[in-house]
């Protein structure tokens, strides 16, 4: 199966381990994720201003190009990109004014015209026809968790994993429609099908601080510490997540947490794709752990049979 794939900025550089493991795991499961050509930044946040409609051009341009290539869906891994693209698509479907104005602008879009060889004004208006999928949804619906489980070579039996969802996957629920925002289960299902055990903890849907990690770092540290401490209190060996921003706050910033919160014990944090690739047979040394502050390798070596 081939699916169009939109990486977004962060996956190419600062969290390349997320992308590498994702693509490798997908390949192992028979899915070739084909990076779309000529992609640009999605904008990172869904633009909510009712008067700055042109801010929608960035994400819609991406979706329109995918539509024009003949595809009706796109897979993304970064939670922020998922949130932006899905909500922008929803806006096109629901709001006539936004749809008309964005399409009007895009029909006149020099950059696309030059790159695609089309003439200015050619091509159909974008009508919201591309479905935006998160990698987890792709695993559950296109591949199937059962099929994924059957391909597992190294079940994660002795690992107690705390699934952390963050905000962008689940909310606003009316637009994201990804899972129950109060009681989601897709990550727990995912962990279970890899043979792992779930350490349930109450902070799995509470915000890590997001961009406050840069603009109000003390607040973000407090939030991240609370989340990690709760996971630890509930018996987690490690935290599993999918968002590069959450990874930054919950993993990279642990170096600051040990200074600010005496008694805080560092805890490894995995991208879900790293665990997936590992369970499917990839060597632990190739999972990109060198990018991590807390090296998860010892935990894997101790707990999971080779």
């Amino acid at each position, binding site marked *: 199966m081939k699916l169009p794939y939109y990486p977004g900025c962060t996956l190419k550089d600062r969290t390349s381990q997320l992308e590498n493991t994702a693509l490798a795991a997908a390949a192992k499961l028979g899915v070739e994720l084909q990076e779309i050509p000529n992609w640009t930044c999605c904008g990172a946040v869904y633009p909510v201003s009712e008067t700055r409609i042109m801010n929608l051009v960035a994400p819609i341009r991406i979706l329109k190009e995918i539509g024009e290539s003949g595809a009706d869906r796109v897979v993304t891994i970064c939670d922020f990109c998922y949130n932006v693209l899905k909500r922008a698509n929803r806006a096109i479907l629901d709001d006539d004014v936004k749809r008309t104005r964005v399409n009007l602008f895009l029909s006149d879009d020099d950059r696309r015209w030059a790159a695609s060889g089309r003439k200015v004004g050619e091509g159909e208006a974008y009508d919201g026809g591309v479905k935006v999928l998160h990698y987890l949804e792709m695993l559950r619906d296109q591949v199937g968790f059962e099929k994924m489980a059957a391909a597992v070579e190294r079940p994660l039996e002795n690992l107690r994993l705390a699934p952390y969802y963050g905000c962008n996957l689940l909310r606003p629920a009316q637009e994201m429609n990804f899972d*129950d*925002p*109060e*009681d989601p289960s897709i990550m727990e299902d995912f962990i279970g099908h890899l043979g792992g055990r779930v350490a349930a903890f*109450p902070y799995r849907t509470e915000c890590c601080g997001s961009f406050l990690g840069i603009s109000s770092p003390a607040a973000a540290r407090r939030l991240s510490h609370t989340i990690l401490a709760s996971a630890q209190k509930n018996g987690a060996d490690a935290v599993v997540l999918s968002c590069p921003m959450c990874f930054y706050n919950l993993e990279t910033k642990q170096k600051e947490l040990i200074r600010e919160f005496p008694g805080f014990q560092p805890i490894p944090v995995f991208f879900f794709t790293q665990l997936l690739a590992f369970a499917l047979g990839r060597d632990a040394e190739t999972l990109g752990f060198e990018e991590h502050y807390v090296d998860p390798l010892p935990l894997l070596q101790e707990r999971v049979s080779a």
Partner: protein
Amino acid sequence: MKRIGVFVCHCGINIAATVDVEKVVEEVRRYPGVAHAEHYQYMCSDPGQKLVQEAIDKHKLDGVIVAACSPTLHEVTFRRASENAGLNPYQCEIANIREQCSWVHADRGAATRKAIRIIESLVEKVKYDESLTPLSVPLTKRAMVVGGGVAGIQAALDVANSGYEVLLVEKQPSIGGHMAQLSETFPTLDCSQCILTPKMVEAGQHKNIRLLTYSEVEEISGYVGNFTVKIRKKAAYVNWDACTGCGVCTEKCPKKVDSEFNCNMGSRGAIYTMFPQAVPNYPVIDRDNCLYFTKGRCRICEKVCDLKAIDYEQKDEVVEEQVGAIVVATGYDTLPLDQLGEYGYGKLPDVIDGMAFERLLSASGPTGGEIRRPSDGKVPKEIVFVQCAGSRDPEKHLPYCSKICCMYTAKHALLYKHRVHDGQPYVFYIDVRTGGKSYEEFYHRVSEEEGVVYIRGKVSRVFQDGDQLIVWGVDTLTGKKVEIAADLVVLATGMIPSAGSQALFSTLKLASDENGFLSEAHPKLRPVESIQAGFYLAGAAQGPRDIPETVAQASGAASKVIALFSQEKLFHEPIVACVDEDLCSGCKVCISACPYDAREFDEKEGIVRVNELLCEGCGACVVSCPSGATQQKNLTDEQIREMVKASLGE
């Protein structure tokens, strides 16, 4: 040529500010058929009506048109006035020049011209109106009350005490409803069962009340005064005529099932009575859980019953009854916890709802009246009450306020304090609504004397942390987020129409509102009747309310029934369909068009006949008839044609 009088009302400024009433009278006076025309400030007043009566006499009028507000308001008024002056009331018509003219237009010239046309079209109608006599109908002076909670019991008692027979139908094995589950009632703190059971017993023993418990209404036909209802008496698998309610079978039953009466916090047998004071006090067998019915074993109840009252072969029985009036009192349930994700979806054992807390408080409840939490039986020392759990939430749950929760939460907090002296109750609220008699004083007693801490702010989330529950709320008055680690959380969940009521309302063809509650005929002036004649409403089936309101409303509904039954005959409007036998070809298209089953085919004569008592004058048959054989009295095709021509100014 008919002599028609036209009376144009000013309705103060409602009509006269937009329509030039003097001009109208001047124009209309000249229209053929109009023998007299005048205008007056308020036609519906006594002097206004006198004008009509005097004119009928003085000008020998044989038709009257009152150009005023909508006929739904005063058609009856003016028809009565005309009748008292010796004119057949069906020769009096209303021309609506308010709702359909002055209230919807701003241009005085155009509005005046339109008013004239409206009146002229009514003149054409009155020209051909016949004098009609209302049809009289006998009535069955027997009432059916659906729902055996306090509303149904009160209504049944009031009707029965007036000398009429009442069938009280209740789907549970016993009457009593939710009030039987309550511990104490606000604001007096009366023991709920102590004040309810005397009424229950009275209803059970009343010579005029026939109790049909464990029964449901299945089918209904007919019309006010003459309903035929089919009621299914569900098989109890116990012969209630033989049973004495000794209770040995319920003691000996080996199966344990979660007790619904105790909100799944205690258990009952597969053969059970709902509670000790049940009326009737006879058990039923829950066949889905009975070991004999599911696995073919046991039969202990049969063995221990000396009176041989157990009958596994018993079948449902459908009985047919004739009644003249029906009171619908099907009550409420509370919003299920599995709807509230932010409070745990009902999966946290120590997050319970108000009704479950009542059962903990109740001396006959699962903990014998000691407040112990469901998970481990520990006495909670920090207890949080969350108001507005699901109510006042148009976005996700119930848009309305459930009215009773502020009061019952205050009551819960107070009763908790009385039993757990060193406990600390907290109540999270958005507003405290205490509109009833002595309610505000009760709330003050709770918040000031009992040390209950009231915190203004809606709780965002409740989750489990170890063996405690973390409550995330806010005190908007000091502007601080608060967190409480509670031993027990009680959610004041909103009131919803009782389970199964939607299906019942469909069967009875009763209108309900967007929240599933019964609709009353008029929200202000007719609160205990449905718009469907013969149906009366009582209690929480119509919307959230407390016990005093419910009882008052039940008596109100009963009084309507009694007023209905005090007449010897009922009168039916004569504006019904009729069939010209010479034109009718017997095609029967009209029969399928009729929504009231009011038409029958006469095989012998080969034509269709109208059952005038069932006909509601909707006109669907007239529209469907290809030959024009069926017409509606005083609204014939010819009349309509002339009215249309007049309204177009032709």
